[in-house]
């Protein structure tokens, strides 16, 4: 099982953002897509999530053209947590999480015993089980994010795509989410996330993909990728690389 791009170009309204990219994302890893604004990292993720079509070239999933892959099957293999989520009216937490089971349920959407178990398990795993009878519209931003994560987890896919999941969160919720994603990755899930914070990516993820102006610049372990040269080239930033005193992972400190 793997996700790859072959001479893939993606964009909006005839305007190319990702340019003829060749990229194979390794299986079973916690992958961060990095790069300055407008580099195409979110656009690439949206193409992998089939929100955007390929303008030319192909995205592949399990060796087949991703955009021709059967939708129902793909929904059991590849899940997406979008950057912004609407706030549905009159929906309880347990209902929203249960919607994540829809690729598995029948015509009327009735949950089986197994579906109920998975929904319950994912609520417990994300710390939202106590909120299950509350309305989603009455939750705080941090709680809501966890409920959505539970919904996406209930989809029970080996691959999970996330589009800047930490952008609008308080720092404590950011850390909590990164820990959760790390734990999910340890359980065997491949996680691909667009991130803004380079140090956050280097600390929690084990594979970084760095893009600039729609092209792949670097990819590999944080050790290999997070260097002064890369920061200079991609972000035009003079920075030193130090060890994170807690995790021992590389960390950039900006020079004046």
């Amino acid at each position, binding site marked *: 099982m793997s996700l790859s791009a072959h001479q893939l170009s993606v964009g909006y309204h005839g305007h190319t953002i990702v340019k003829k990219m060749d990229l194979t994302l390794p299986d079973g890893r916690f992958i961060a897509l990095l790069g300055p604004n407008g580099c195409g990292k979110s656009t690439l993720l949206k193409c992998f999530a089939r929100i955007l079509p390929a303008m030319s070239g192909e995205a592949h999933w399990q060796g087949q053209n991703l955009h021709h892959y059967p939708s129902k099957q793909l929904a059991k293999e590849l899940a997406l947590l979008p950057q912004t989520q609407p706030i549905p*009216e009159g929906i309880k937490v347990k209902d929203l999480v249960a919607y994540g089971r829809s*690729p598995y349920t029948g015509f009327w959407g009735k949950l089986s015993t197994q579906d109920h178990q998975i929904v319950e398990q994912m609520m417990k795993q994300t710390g939202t089980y106590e909120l299950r009878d509350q309305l989603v519209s009455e939750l705080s931003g941090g709680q809501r994010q966890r409920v959505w994560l539970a919904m996406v987890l209930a989809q029970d896919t080996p691959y999970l795509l996330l589009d800047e999941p930490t952008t609008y969160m308080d720092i404590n919720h950011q850390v909590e989410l990164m820990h959760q994603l790390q734990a999910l990755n340890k359980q065997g899930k491949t996680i691909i996330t667009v991130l803004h914070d380079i140090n956050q990516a280097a600390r929690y993820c084990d594979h970084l993909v760095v893009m600039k102006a729609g092209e792949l610049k670097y990819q590999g372990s944080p050790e290999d990728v997070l260097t002064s040269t890369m920061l200079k080239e991609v972000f035009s930033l003079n920075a030193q690389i130090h060890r994170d005193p807690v995790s021992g992972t590389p960390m950039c400190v900006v020079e004046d």
Partner: protein
Amino acid sequence: MTAQRFFPFALLMLFALSLANLLFGAVSLSLHDIWQGLFVGSEQHFTVYEYRLPRIFLAILVGAGLALSGALVQGVIRNPLASPDVLGVSHGAGLAAVFYMTYFSGASTEWLPEVALAGGICAALVLWYLCGTHSSAIKLAITGVALAAFWASCIDFLMLTKPLEINNALLWLTGSLWGRSWPQLQALLPWFVLVPFALGLSKYLNVLDLGDDSANSLGVSPQSVRLLSLAIAVALTAACVSVCGPIGFLGLVAPHLTRKLVGGRHQSLLPASMLTGACLLLAADLAARTLAPPIELPAGILTAIIGAPYFLWLLLRMK
């Protein structure tokens, strides 16, 4: 209130309101009169069987149909203030009807429902032509509102320039169950084969609540769900409006109120909205017939009297 408690309660209300509609009116009848009236030859046969009974069935169908359409449109546009009215269907039907009444005043009014139905469906097709299949919910809503305003101004233009026929047109445009009987019921009933298809969209409408991107990721095509739901809503609204005229606010208030009571899962919301809509129209028609007998108020005025403040209250509550 949970869905489990809502359904028995609403069914009881429906039964009570139907009975009240049989009992009360310009003349009050006893239960015995009603029973007798069901059979040919009795004194009250006309009042009960030809007049009150078909109107009850019609109120139930039209109320349920408009409420279901409203619930579908609100599910698609993801806005509680949406209703079939924002698609311009009612106004399109109204324009066709007024046009027919002013320019073909000699023609038989027998064809009025068909003309109104065609008008409603044409209005929806214009909306579809302007927006296409791939447009966002908000573009659809804004275009729909603009079109509805345009149809409404055309109606006003016709009524101001052709004042002679204004009375008939006004009467039709307020929406009423007056004078409707078994033939209208027969015309309307076939359209309700669409109801099971609408209920079958429940699971997909749920997923649509999560946004287009999430729906895609869950294997559901938002465009297809939108197109199917709106097609059913348009057909049901046009059919209801063609029989009774535009009954204002029912498609907005009934599903919104129901969402407050049973929540937003469409498996409960859609059938529950139908019951609420049926009860509301039965209540409105009962009031219309009993407030100032023997004069009948159009039910559409009563739904507007309740609906307009509700709409304002909704607007004020929105942040």
